[in-house]
């Protein structure tokens, strides 16, 4: 069986997620799918898995036109999708999870517990005879690899020919990965093709028969895995020329003798920590790491650390006892979080109201806390112009804006009535889901802020962005700061080595 996608186009409001991508998937191979965040991998497999309809193009199954009405329809055609987030129901056993929604019944109503256990065991044994998992234990108590295997066995319940695995090892500790790899390797021999998305290039190389690289929604190349190496994958994934020129772009000289704006030592929260970390005025420090490595959590903990376990933080030389959003904001720390619609914006508020969220006093009359709509509108317009926000007026509802403009509002909150006020600005995924034009503008803004003496911290999963902006990079793995790189010693290899825990 082979599924052929030809010239697939996928448009989201304001952005083109996939641009004429052609690729084929077969049931006798592991097909690695790689690309940076935003390259279109997840969109592509959502189309393949039936959960998204594409804008243009053609999909065929063994030569016949394939139109999928949803994930259920895809499953009926033999395409199963095990998503990144996981879909297990905690509290239920492994067996119950495997047969979720297809439990054997007695008298058509009562779950046949013994039959359920037997069927689940049979399914597991049929696919993976040498794997033993305690299917009677609550599924959340199983090792992570076993949990993934339970999910995979559930996906294989029907007559599956293509199995999509989206970052199956992202949450797995290193020692459990091998266990899952063995499973993935075996599937094509049993007639199930695998489409594998992974950030771990060594994993892609070790498991795949063919590899497809996507970049910015376009197909770069599909090629056999034999003979390929990590360096080649990385160079295909990253826009070499651009990344290189970015690395060569001059950086403002940092006064290494200047006292740090923020400094932590033995810093530890429940999610992340660092022995020592400091940022000086004018520096842009990039935090990098694989998903879940703690770089985002660490960035946030410099602003809001309700889960602090230990360590000391000094801001402008002063020891800080309370590291909470309200206290740190007052001291002069700004925080622009990821997932802006969840962490930063009120969706049904206007642009003006969202901008005024941090410093409403800038639109107020005197110090009485009385808001003046005219002043608010004036200040909102100023920020909108400063950031080139495209909106019909300050009264437009923020949810209606494009990703780039939403992100500009999320940043603009810290400029509204507060130009030049913040001494430390922390950004997490500053250009997540943002179009190229807005991305460039946001990058320039960050550089301008640093040039004006602000200390800037950027945690991002976009390595090009980091290479483009940072004066210094700190890498995280397993919740800890493990390495440091200084511009201009940036390269894809050095980044990846630093993230993998190899000291550069």
């Amino acid at each position, binding site marked *: 069986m082979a599924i052929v996608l030809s010239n697939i186009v996928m448009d989201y409001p304001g952005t083109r997620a996939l641009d004429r991508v052609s690729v084929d998937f077969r049931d006798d191979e592991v097909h690695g799918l790689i690309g940076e965040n935003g390259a279109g991998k997840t969109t592509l497999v959502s189309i393949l898995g039936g959960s998204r309809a594409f804008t243009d193009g053609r999909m065929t199954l063994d030569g016949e036109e394939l139109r999928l009405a949803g994930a259920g329809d895809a499953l009926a055609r033999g395409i199963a999708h095990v998503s990144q987030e996981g879909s297990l129901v905690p509290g239920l056993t492994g067996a119950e999870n495997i047969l979720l929604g297809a439990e054997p019944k007695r008298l058509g109503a009562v779950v046949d517990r013994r039959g359920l256990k037997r069927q689940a065991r049979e399914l597991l044994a049929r696919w993976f005879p040498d794997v033993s998992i305690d299917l009677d234990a609550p599924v959340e108590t199983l090792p992570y690899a076993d949990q993934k295997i339970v999910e995979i066995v559930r996906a294989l319940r029907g007559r599956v020919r293509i199995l999509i695995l989206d970052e199956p090892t992202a949450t797995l500790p290193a020692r459990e990965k091998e266990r899952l790899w063995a499973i993935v390797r075996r599937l094509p021999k049993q007639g199930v093709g695998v489409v594998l998305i992974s950030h771990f290039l060594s994993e892609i190389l070790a498991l795949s028969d063919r590899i497809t690289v996507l970049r910015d929604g376009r197909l770069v190349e599909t090629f056999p895995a034999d003979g390929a190496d990590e360096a080649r994958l990385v160079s295909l994934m990253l826009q070499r020329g651009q990344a290189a020129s970015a690395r060569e772009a001059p950086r403002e000289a940092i006064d290494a003798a200047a006292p740090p704006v923020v400094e932590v030592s033995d810093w530890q929260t429940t999610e992340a920590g660092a022995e020592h970390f400091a940022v000086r005025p004018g520096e842009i420090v990039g935090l990098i790491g694989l998903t879940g490595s703690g770089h985002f959590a660490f960035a946030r903990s410099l602003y809001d650390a309700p889960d602090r376990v230990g360590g000391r933080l000094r801001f402008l030389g002063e020891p800080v006892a309370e590291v909470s959003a309200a206290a740190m904001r007052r001291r002069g720390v700004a925080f622009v979080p990821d997932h802006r619609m969840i962490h930063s914006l*009120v969706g049904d508020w206007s642009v003006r109201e969202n901008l005024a969220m941090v410093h409403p006093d800038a639109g107020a009359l005197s110090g009485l806390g009385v808001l003046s709509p005219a002043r608010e509108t004036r200040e909102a317009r100023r920020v909108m112009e400063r950031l080139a*926000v495209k909106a019909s007026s300050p009264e437009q509802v923020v949810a209606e804006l494009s990703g780039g403009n939403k992100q500009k509002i999320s940043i603009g909150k810290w400029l509204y009535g507060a130009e030049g006020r913040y001494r430390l600005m922390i950004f997490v995924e500053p250009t997540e889901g943002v179009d190229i034009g807005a991305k460039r503008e946001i990058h320039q803004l960050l550089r301008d802020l640093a040039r004006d003496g602000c200390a800037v911290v950027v945690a991002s999963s976009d390595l090009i962005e980091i290479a483009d902006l940072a004066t210094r990079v700190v890498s995280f793995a397993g919740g800890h700061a493990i390495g440091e790189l200084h511009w201009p010693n940036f390269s894809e290899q050095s980044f990846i080595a630093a993230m993998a825990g190899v000291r550069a």
Partner: protein
Amino acid sequence: MSATLTGPRDEAAGRRRLKQGLLRYSTLIVLALLFIGFSIGVDRFLTTTNLLNILQQISMLTIVAIGLTFGFAAREMDLSVGFMAGLAGLIAPLLLVAGWPMPVALLAGLGAGLAVGLTNALLVTLVGVPSLIATLAMGSILFGVNFLLSGGRAIYGGLPDSYLVLGQGRILGIPVVAFIMLGAVALAWFVMERTIFGRYVYAVGGNLKAAELSGIRGRRYRQAALVISSLFAAIAGILLSARLGSGQPNAGQDYLLDGLATVFIGMTMFRPGTATIAGTFFGALFIGVINNGLNLVGLDTYIQSIVKGVIIIVAVAVVSRTTKLKLI
């Protein structure tokens, strides 16, 4: 000032805006139609006396509903308002009958509101009991307290005129309660729409996570909203006892359901899905006009109850189908 969007997005946004615009004012249009209908169809509806009656009838309800609106805006629901009104409406008359001066009686009634509001707020924000449950339980407690305090009997006799005038008096022919209500509406509107405090209450209700990461101490505004809710209930309870000329152990009980209905109807207007003071005021007017009109037509109160129930369902259905309804 900046480039506009083009293409299908623009059209879709335009349609959405038109739809929201229609939705925003549909309840007001229905209210106007009701008003016109009653004016034409019912003899004694469109008279000064009757219109002032409506105003008087909705005054206490509006005050309770304003308190609820603060709670809703911060996404906290206060189900103890009815019994809270009852408590304040007992404490003040009890003290007056016992010979205490008026200011003491009024302050004691308001103090009870403050105490209950603080207790609710602490239970919700510090102990972590969801407001729906904490205030439901508080309502049950207050119901019992009200009967213990009064011995199950009405408190009357010896209430000074200076007290009764709050509920029964008129200035220039207009009921005193209406002045108080309009003052409360104006004050609450100003606080919610024109002060940083109000903006923060809305921020906390609109997206608590975003508000807190913006440096707003969310807990403080959720507490404030619950305290204000209880205080407004206490004011309404005092006014009700003044109007009735006595403290009744089960007075104010209807305010919970009617108050919620008022806020729900209000949430269909102006900023659909969000509780606003203006929306609440017109919501109360809506209920007042319907109750009054049906009364004049001669329909029984249980018919009115049915009509009210249907209206709540329609209002909430309209809001939840078109916006993401923010209840709790």
